[in-house]
């Protein structure tokens, strides 16, 4: 191979790795657990791996299927609302997005037994949603801007914001605004089986095929609201006089495939208590990514648009999530069920691999960054349920705590959820459960560089879930 060819290949590798770089935010998106898809469980703060005695066992603990004694159809929908109050240079902007989705369908089939239990189930579950939004608007008085941060790309040059040598007169002091809307969900088809291996000891396993999608639509603006840049941004081009606005749109679209497996155990201490343990093996997500870019610069008498094809492209890669190891217990005190569980997740173990159109060394560096920035966490779930036996009415409450995956985050960044729910059992055949979850946490985001154009986000999350079950 000639020296010239080697140079060309190296150049292409560098370009491909720089233009379409993924980072830990992408790995976290699919690795942080969602809220599942069962209203009874959600009402109890998803503290459900020691119960799991319905079709949602496929999501929580497959061993719980062994506790199901009737043929069961389960189905449900949920409504999610995401509210973000974003503070940006002392200005607060509110945004909201929502999503309604069929989140659960399952069939559970217990085989007749003389002793013990053998149960199979097929289910479709929404594992998590990607609903999110962010809007901000404020004047950045610093001598920095996204235009300057992009000087290592051709974008400012292509938009006539630099001279012919790639230098710009733009030096911050711009009004910066933007809006981001995220949508999509992660879903899986699961085949589960459970058996009572010893008296009161249940073992279950499942295999899931994952499908999902994610879209992030981000519009970003920098406006010269103080009329600072009256001259030509590209000297020699009079139409670039009086710079007004820089606009950049990033549209990220994922088509997600994958598979994963889980094993679980439940031991029942007669009428009193149940103990559950699950091991969720690392989930492998195959990401088909479509990244689209649009841009524009506006001047007093002209505007220039970016060649979208130059900066848009498609790549493929894998993300592997960490192990999730959970243990929990529930006790039944005269009709009052109290339940708690812990889940250990080592976010350092998230990993990028098998990139097509992305260099292996780039992913190696990103995997190192994940190990440097992330930490091990323990998630907590607590819940309670009381049944009024005369009318088949049940009330529930719960709490969830999902600590931030980032090493140095304060507890403000932990996701906290308070949950409540009610349920009805009619004639021992039809069950209707409704749950509401309220979540709150803080987050930050950088429009470019680090801590020079940062949004401080105060997030409120609402989810209403309805699940119906029919047993016969």
């Amino acid at each position, binding site marked *: 191979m000639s020296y010239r060819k080697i140079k060309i290949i190296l150049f292409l590798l560098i370009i491909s790795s720089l233009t*379409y770089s993924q*980072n830990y935010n992408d790995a976290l998106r699919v690795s942080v657990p969602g809220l599942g898809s069962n209203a009874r469980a959600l009402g109890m703060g998803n503290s459900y791996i020691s119960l799991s005695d319905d079709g949602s066992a496929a999501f929580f603990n497959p061993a719980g299927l062994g506790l199901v004694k009737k043929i069961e159809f389960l189905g449900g929908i949920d409504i999610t609302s995401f509210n973000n109050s974003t503070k940006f240079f002392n200005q607060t902007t509110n945004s909201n997005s929502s999503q309604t989705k069929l989140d659960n369908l399952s069939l559970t089939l217990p085989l007749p037994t003389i002793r013990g239990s053998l149960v199979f189930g097929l289910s479709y579950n929404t594992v998590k949603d990607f609903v999110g939004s962010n809007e901000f608007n404020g004047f950045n008085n610093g001598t920095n801007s996204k235009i300057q941060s992009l000087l290592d790309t051709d974008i400012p040059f292509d938009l006539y914001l630099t001279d012919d*040598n790639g230098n710009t007169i733009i030096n911050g002091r711009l009004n910066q605004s933007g809006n981001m809307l995220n949508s999509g969900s992660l879903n899986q088809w699961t085949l589960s089986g459970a*058996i009572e291996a010893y008296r009161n000891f249940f073992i279950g*396993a499942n295999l899931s095929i994952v499908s999902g999608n994610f879209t992030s639509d981000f519009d970003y603006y920098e406006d010269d609201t103080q009329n600072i840049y009256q001259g030509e941004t590209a000297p*020699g081009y009079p139409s670039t006089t009086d710079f007004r606005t820089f606009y950049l749109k990033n549209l990220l679209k994922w088509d997600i495939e994958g598979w994963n497996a889980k094993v679980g155990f439940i031991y029942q201490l007669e009428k009193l208590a149940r103990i559950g343990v699950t091991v969720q093996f690392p989930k492998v997500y195959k990401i088909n990514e479509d990244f689209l870019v649009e841009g524009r610069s506006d001047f007093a008498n002209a505007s220039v648009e970016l060649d979208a094809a130059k900066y848009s492209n498609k790549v493929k890669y894998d993300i592997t999530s960490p192990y999730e190891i959970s243990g929990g217990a529930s006790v039944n005190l005269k009709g009052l069920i109290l339940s708690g569980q812990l889940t250990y997740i080592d976010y350092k173990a998230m990993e990028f691999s098998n990139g097509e159109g992305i260099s292996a060394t780039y992913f190696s560096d990103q995997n190192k960054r994940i190990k440097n920035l992330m930490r091990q966490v323990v998630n907590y779930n607590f819940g309670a349920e009381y049944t009024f036996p005369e009318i088949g009415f049940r009330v529930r409450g719960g709490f969830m705590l999902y600590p931030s995956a980032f090493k140095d985050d304060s507890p403000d960044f932990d996701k906290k959820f308070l949950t409540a729910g009610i349920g009805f059992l009619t004639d021992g055949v039809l069950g209707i459960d409704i749950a509401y979850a309220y979540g709150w946490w803080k987050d930050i985001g950088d429009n470019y560089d680090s801590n020079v154009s940062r949004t401080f986000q105060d997030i409120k999350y609402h989810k209403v879930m309805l699940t119906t079950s029919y047993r016969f």
Partner: protein
Amino acid sequence: MKQLLIITAFSTLILQGCYTVIMTPEDKKITHYDLYGYYPIEYYGDYGNYYDMPWWYSSPVVSVGNNQIIQRSSDTKTVRNENGDRTNTESRDGIISTPPPTRDIGSSTSGSGTSKSNGNSNNEVRSNNSSGNSNSGSIRNENGNRNSGNSRR
């Protein structure tokens, strides 16, 4: 694949000497079934049957404490019934939009821009492929997500 092997090996070990015994057509009459009773009748009433009573029992059940004796009907019931965004994109009114400067595709010889002024300032031409800046840096993560740089904050 490793995970599948673990699950398969694990399942094989578990199923040997298993506690569970499947009912066969020869098992015509079962006089005793050991219910788990996590939802006992004294606290859940008849609603406890929603969880604890197997579907292959069709006769009324007499529950007595922990050890319930169940008389199984000889005819098994087999009838089955089956029941069962909105976006808020910010608009940008008021942006002046005039025809962009045209790009001289054929111009590739100079590192400097060339102007073909014809009295219309919008018809400026700029060479695109020789700007003195050959980098195509990353904008993929310039999306408002967390960006650590060298230090995350």
